[in-house]
């Protein structure tokens, strides 16, 4: 009697253990499949996604190699007692370019906008959407009426749209948007169906695009100050 009971308990114990183990395994599999958002993608989408990750990897890899090389150069300079000034200056120039603190030039387009007479004036949102579309198409530098668009640029309507402020500076019509980047990419980003230039024209505003082989964009002329980031 006692022996039979023990056997039964052991058997049941093993059965329960086996079941729980299977459940755990299954939970894990379900979790893992959930991590990837790619499971429902179609083949063409997957190809784009793969190309995307390849590019991202290549870019980050190139950056890694560049940084590693810089580290070596600093180390070599120390050994040979060279002044590190050239290296530091180079790095500072790169940083300043990213900050928008250097005058730049290159191929691109110039968009000129003027509000139509009997329609609601061009708004800050119109400019914001235009800038976003240009960035999406790969714009490398943008200015509106010589106000450089940097990563902390805001474009806002003041006094219910009576004028627009960019970087805290009041700007007036006509709005001259200078863009450096691939000319045809920049142009197609704002023209065609759904393009902002097209849309503004349809609404009755004046919007023109000019291509340029050497467009100059001035540096941001304010101070970039930070108080809170560490």
């Amino acid at each position, binding site marked *: 009697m006692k022996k039979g009971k023990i056997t039964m308990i052991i058997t*049941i114990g093993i059965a329960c253990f086996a079941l729980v183990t299977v459940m755990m395994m299954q939970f894990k599999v379900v979790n893992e499949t959930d991590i990837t958002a790619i499971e429902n*993608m179609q083949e063409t989408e997957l190809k784009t996604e793969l190309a995307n990750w390849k590019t991202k990897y290549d870019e980050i890899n190139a950056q890694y190699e560049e940084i590693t090389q810089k580290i070596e150069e600093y180390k070599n300079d*120390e050994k040979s007692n060279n002044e590190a000034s050239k290296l530091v200056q180079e790095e*500072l120039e790169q940083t300043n370019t990213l900050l*928008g603190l250097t005058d730049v030039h290159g191929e691109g387009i110039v968009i000129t906008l003027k509000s139509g007479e009997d329609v609601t004036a061009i708004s800050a949102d119109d400019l914001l959407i235009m800038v976003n579309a240009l960035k999406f198409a790969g714009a490398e530098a943008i200015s509106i009426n010589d106000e450089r668009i940097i990563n902390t640029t*805001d474009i806002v309507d003041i006094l219910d749209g009576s004028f627009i402020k960019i970087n805290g500076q009041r700007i007036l019509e006509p709005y001259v948007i200078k863009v450096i980047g691939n000319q045809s990419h920049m142009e197609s980003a704002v023209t065609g169906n759904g393009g902002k230039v097209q849309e503004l024209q349809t609404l009755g505003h004046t919007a023109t695009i000019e291509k340029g082989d050497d467009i100059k964009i001035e540096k941001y002329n304010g101070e*970039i100050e930070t108080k809170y*980031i560490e």
Partner: protein
Amino acid sequence: MTNKKIIAIILGVMCFALSLGVVVQVRTIKSTDSTIGQNQEANALRDEILKYKERYDNRFKELETAEKTLEQERQEATKNNSELEQAQQKITEGNKITGMTEVTGPGVTITLTDGKGIATSTLNPSQLIVHDLDVLSVVNELINAGAEAISINDQRWVLTTAISCRGNTIDINEQRIGAPFVIKAIGLPEYLSGLERVGGYLEYMKQDGVSVKLEKSNNITIPKYSGVINFEYLKNVEE
């Protein structure tokens, strides 16, 4: 005898529950498998994507370490020259502003979730959804309120960041993200929380039925940019 019966019943119920659990799980996996296993080529592509993702993640971690080493080397190399030291400080500071390093500080976290309300005749169902332009407007208002660093679902807002719509999701820094959108910003929390003011964009979104949550915090961490900014067409004007 009654004792035995009770044990038998309890065991029976337990076994039933466990079996049920297993069946549910097996079925779940089967259903995910059916989408995964459509064809071999797609599976091969998925494997390849995961492989590159992993390679990217590993390289990215190495890059972060290398950048810290570079900063130490730069500090070491410039410490005996006040002019160079100043330049090195500008680089370090600049990297924080441009999004090339992780930053921390006080600020706010704004969470935007698609509305769950039922679309009525007065409420367009599309209004319940968070759109690319909503996120763009919130970022613009945050900058206007003095934000010094911003991220959207951990994608750092940098010079070249654009937001675009792609069906139910949006693309930021060429990365696809979906709702809920968690926007973090570092700056003076009192100013940044001013986005909740009457007539502000957040209120406008709330009226549309989108769920909006704003939380102040003294310690917000915003990651570094996940990509690299390369210029192909732009050159600095030689002075």
